[in-house]
C-alpha cells in the first residue's frame, strides 16, 4: 500500500517537538499560545493518522498491514520496517487516544511548558515507533528512545524527591535496555544469514541454535527469552522489580505517571507478546507456566499492597501492578480467548489507568493533598459528589472499568481473560477473582473517601467541578471506555486472527 500513515504518525509529533525546541523564548501571550497550539496540533495530527490506520485495517486477516519497508543500514541488514496487525492495533489506538489528552492535561503547566510538551511529543513518537516496528533493531531503537524523555519529565517536573525517582527510573531503564540489547545482538549473530526482520526470525528458527560462553553450551532461544523478559520486566513493573515504579508514582507529575503506567506498561506487555511468541515459540510454550506464576504473584502482591495505601497515585501504581499480573496470566494461558483478552485488556487498562491518574492529578491540583485517608484510616476529603457531580461520575466510570464491571471496557478484557485461562490454569483464575474482589473493596473505599459521605475537612470544599478543558479531555476517555465495553466486536475482529495465527505457530 502506498499511504505512509505509520511514518506520518511518527513524524508529525516529532516535528512538533522540534518546533517546540526552536520556538523563540518570550513571555508574550501570542508566543505561548502558538507553542501550545502547535503542540496539541502535532500530537492530534499524529493521532489522527493512527486512528485512520486503525479504521483502515482489514478485519479477519492475520497479515501485516500498511507495511512500509526502507533499507536503513544495509551492512547490518537493518531496515525501517513498519506495519500493523492484530497484535499492535490496540496499542496504536491507545497511543493515539492518550497523548493529545496528556498534552491537554498539561495545558497550563507553569514551568517550562514548551519543554514538557516537546518531551511528551518525543515520547509519542518513540512509543508509536516501538509498537509498529517489525524489525528487532528498530523496535529496540524506539523502545530505548522512550526512556530518555521520561527521565527528564520525572527529573524536572516531579515532586520534592524527583532526582532520586528519575535516577532510579533511569537505572532500571538502563539495565533493562542493556539486557534487551544483549539479547538482540545474540539473536542477530546466531542466525544465518544475519537478520533483524521479525518475520524472518519467527517460526522457531532460533530454537535449535546454541552458543558457547565460558565453555558451556547454552540455547540462544532460552537465554534471549530470559534477557528480553527481564529487560521488559524492568520497564513494566513486575514484582520484585517494581521499586522504581512506586517511587516514580509518588514523585512524577500525574500526566507523566499516566504516560508511564497507561502507555509504557501496555506497550511493554505488547512487546513481550510480540517477541516471545513469534521468536521463541517453543521456549514460550515451556515457560508459559512460569509466566502465569509471575502474573499470579503480581496480581496478589499488587492487590494486597494496594489495600494499605493512603496516597492516590501509589494506589494507582499497585492497581497497575496487579492488572499487569492479570494480563500475564492471559498471555501465559496460551489459549485464544485468554490471549485476545490480554491484548484487549492492554487497551482497557491504559484507558482506565489514564482516567484514574488524570483525575487524581485534578484532585491534587484542587486540594493540594495526595492522600485520601489519614493514618488512622479516616477520610481526608469526602463529600465531593455534591459539589463536583461530573467529577464523581467520571471517577465512577473509571473505577468501574478498572474493576471490570459489565458495560465497561475492563469487563470485556477481564471476562475473556478469565474464560480463556480457566481451562488451563483454574487456580490462577480463582486467584484473579479473589483479587478483583479485593480491588472492589479498596477502589470503592477510595471512592467513598473522596466523593461520598460528609466533608471531612475544609479542603474538601475546595473541590470544584471539572472545568471545560478538563471535561474536554476526560469525557472522551470515559465515553471510549463505555463504547469499548459495550461494542468491542470490531476491535476483537481485528485482534483475533493474528492471535490465532500466533498460537497456531506455538502449538
Amino acid at each position: 500500500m502506498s499511504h505512509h500513515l505509520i511514518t506520518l504518525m511518527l513524524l508529525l509529533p516529532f516535528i512538533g517537538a522540534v518546533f517546540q525546541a526552536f520556538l523563540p523564548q518570550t513571555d508574550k501571550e501570542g508566543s505561548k499560545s502558538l507553542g501550545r497550539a502547535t503542540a496539541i496540533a502535532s500530537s492530534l495530527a499524529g493521532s489522527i493518522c493512527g486512528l485512520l490506520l486503525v479504521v483502515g485495517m482489514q478485519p479477519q486477516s492475520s497479515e501485516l498491514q500498511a507495511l512500509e519497508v526502507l533499507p536503513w543500514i544495509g551492512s547490518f541488514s537493518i531496515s525501517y520496517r513498519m506495519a500493523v496487525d492484530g497484535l499492535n492495533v490496540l496499542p496504536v489506538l491507545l497511543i493515539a487516544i492518550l497523548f493529545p489528552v496528556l498534552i491537554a492535561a498539561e495545558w497550563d503547566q507553569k514551568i517550562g511548558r514548551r519543554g514538557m510538551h516537546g518531551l511528551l511529543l518525543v515520547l509519542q513518537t518513540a512509543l508509536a515507533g516501538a509498537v509498529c516496528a517489525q524489525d528487532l533493531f528498530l523496535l529496540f531503537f524506539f523502545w530505548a528512545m522512550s526512556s530518555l524523555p521520561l527521565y527528564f519529565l520525572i527529573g524536572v517536573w516531579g515532586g520534592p524527591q524527583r532526582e532520586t525517582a528519575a535516577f532510579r527510573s533511569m537505572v532500571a531503564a538502563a539495565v533493562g535496555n542493556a539486557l534487551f540489547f544483549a539479547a538482540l545482538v545474540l539473536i542477530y549473530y546466531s542466525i544465518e544469514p544475519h537478520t533483524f526482520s521479525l518475520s524472518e526470525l519467527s517460526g522457531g528458527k532460533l530454537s535449535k541454535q546454541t552458543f558457547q560462553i565460558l565453555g558451556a553450551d547454552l540455547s540462544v532461544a532460552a537465554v534471549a527469552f530470559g534477557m528480553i523478559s527481564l529487560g521488559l520486566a524492568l520497564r513494566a513493573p513486575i514484582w520484585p522489580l517494581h521499586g522504581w515504579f512506586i517511587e516514580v508514582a509518588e514523585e512524577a507529575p500525574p500526566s507523566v505517571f499516566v504516560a508511564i503506567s497507561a502507555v509504557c506498561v501496555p506497550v511493554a506487555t505488547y512487546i513481550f507478546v510480540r517477541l516471545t511468541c513469534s521468536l521463541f515459540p517453543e521456549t514460550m510454550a515451556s515457560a508459559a507456566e512460569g509466566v502465569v506464576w509471575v502474573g499470579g504473584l503480581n496480581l496478589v502482591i499488587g492487590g494486597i499492597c494496594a489495600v494499605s495505601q493512603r496516597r492516590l497515585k501509589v494506589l494507582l501504581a499497585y492497581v497497575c501492578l496487579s492488572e499487569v499480573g492479570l494480563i500475564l496470566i492471559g498471555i501465559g494461558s496460551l489459549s485464544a480467548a485468554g490471549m485476545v483478552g490480554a491484548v484487549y485488556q492492554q487497551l482497557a487498562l491504559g484507558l482506565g489507568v489514564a482516567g484514574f491518574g488524570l483525575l487524581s492529578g485534578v484532585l491534587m491540583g484542587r486540594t493540594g493533598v495526595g492522600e485520601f485517608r489519614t493514618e488512622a484510616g479516616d477520610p481526608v476529603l469526602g463529600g465531593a459528589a455534591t459539589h463536583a457531580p461530573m467529577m464523581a461520575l467520571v471517577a465512577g466510570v473509571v473505577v468501574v472499568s478498572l474493576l471490570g464491571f459489565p458495560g465497561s471496557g475492563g469487563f470485556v478484557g477481564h471476562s475473556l481473560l478469565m474464560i480463556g485461562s480457566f481451562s488451563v490454569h483454574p487456580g490462577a483464575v480463582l486467584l484473579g477473582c479473589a483479587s478483583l474482589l479485593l480491588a472492589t473493596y479498596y477502589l470503592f473505599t477510595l471512592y467513598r473517601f473522596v466523593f461520598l459521605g460528609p466533608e471531612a475537612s475544609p479542603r474538601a470544599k475546595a473541590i470544584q467541578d471539572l472545568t471545560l478543558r478538563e471535561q474536554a479531555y476526560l469525557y472522551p476517555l470515559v465515553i471510549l471506555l463505555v463504547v469499548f465495553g459495550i461494542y468491542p466486536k470490531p476491535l476483537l475482529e481485528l485482534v483475533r486472527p493474528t492471535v490465532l495465527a500466533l498460537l497456531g505457530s506455538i502449538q
Partner: protein
Amino acid sequence: MNDILFLLPEIYLAFTLALVIASEVAYHGEPRRLITGLALLGLGGAFIQTLLAFRVAPVLVLDQALSMDGLSLFFKLFFILLGALTLLAARSSRELSEVNRPEFSALIIGCTLAMSIAVSATDVLVIFLSIQVLNILGFLLAGFSKRSIRSTEAAVKQLAFGAVAGLLFLFAIAMLFASTGSVSLLDLHRQLVQAPLPNQAALVVFVLIFLSLGFQMATFPMSLSAPDVIEGSPTPVSGYLAIAPRVAGAAVAVRLLLVLFAQPELEPGRWQILGGVDWPRIVGLIAGLTMVSGALLALRQTSAKRLVAYLAVVESGFLLLGLLVLDQVGVGALLYSCLMQLFALTGAFLVLSHFWDELGTDRLSELKRLPRQAVPEAVALVLFLASLVGLPPLPGFIGKFALVGVALQHQWSFLAVLAVLAMAVSVIALSRLAYGLMGDLRALPSQPASLDSRPRRIFLGALFIPMFLLGIFAEPLLAWVTRSIRFILW
C-alpha cells in the same frame, strides 16, 4: 618532487606552526586575535589537501618512511578536524587567557602535525619520535594554566607516564632491531613472516609495545593516569587530551599490531596471528578490564570532568574490541567509533568548559548552582555524553552495536557481555551527572538568553548535525571507512 606533493598537508601544518609562532612574537594587542584565525586557515588548507590526496592510490613516500594510505588519510582528516574544533571551542574559554591564546594555537597545531606523522609512519623510529613529540606537547598543554596546582600536577603526570611509555616502546623496537636489523615496518613484516621471533621474545615485545600504546590509548593498567591528566588540565585542553592521544594510540596500534603481529589471510579483509603468541587473548582481557574498571570508577566520581574522563576510558576499551577481531569490519567499526567520539567529547568538554567559566568548579554537587539560562547547554551535555556511551536512540549506539557485534561474531561472547555491562554502568554514571545538573531549575528566575551565548549554542548545534548525520548515514560511512582501510600498505 612527488613526495613533496603527498606531504603537502604536513607542510601546510608546519608552515602554519611557524607563522603562528612568528606572529606571536611580532604582534601585540588586538592583532593577536587574528592568529587563531590564521591557525584555522592553515588547518583548513591541510584538510582540503588531505581530501585531495584520497583520490590518489596509496603510496610510500620519503624513502618508505611514510605511507599515504586510507588509514593514514582518514586519521589525518580526523586530527585536523579535531584541532580546528578545539581551537574554535576554546575561543570563548576564560581559563585560557587572551595573552596565551597564540601559544595554545601553536601547541594544538604542533600536536596535529605530530599525530599526522605518527599515523602515516611506517618506520618504528618515526612512530616513536612523533609519539614522543605528541607526549611532550601534551605535557605543555596539560600544564597550560601555570598557576593552577592541579594543572601542574596533570603536566607532571603526563610527563612521567609519557616518559615511561616512551622507554617501553624504545626497548621493544630495540629488541626488534636486534633480531632483524631493521626499523622499517615493511621490512620487519617481511622478515617476521619468514622467521618469526621466538615465543618468549615475541611476547615481551608485544607486551612492551602494547603497554606503551596503552598509555596513549588509556587502556587498563595505564588508564589510571589519564583521568588525572584530563581533570587537572584547563578544560579546553582536557577535551583535546581526552581524544587526541587516545585516537592516535588506536591508529598506531592498528598499524603496528596488524603489521608486526599479524599477516593477511587469503580471504581479503581478514588477518591471522603471526608467530606463536595468542595476543588477541591479551587484548581481549585488557579490553574487558578497561571497560569494566572505567565504567565502575565513573560511577564513583564527584567531579564532572573526571567522570567524563572515565567514560572516555570506557571508550578505549571499546576501541580495543575492534582491534582484536583482526578483520576490516572490526577496524571499520573502530574508525566509526572514533569519529563519534570526536564530536561527542568535543561537545561535552565545550559545555563543561562553559560551566567551569560560570561556576569555577566542576563538582557534581555544585552544578546545581547553574543559572537557568544554562539549560540548553545542560541538555546538550547530556545528549553528547549519552551518544558517547551509546544510549540507544542516539547515534553512538550504532558504533557500539557494530563493535559488540564483531566481538560476538568472533566467539568473544564473554567480552560482549562485559561490553554491554559496561554500557549499562556508564549510562548510570551519566545519569548521576544529569542528576547533578537538574538541580533547582524551577527555583531560579528566568532571564532571557544573553547575546554572548549565541555563538556557543550555534557551535554546539553545529556539532550535533554531523553527529546525527553519522547515525543516519551510518551505512555509507561504515562502507567508506572499511574501504579506506583496505589499502593499508604492507
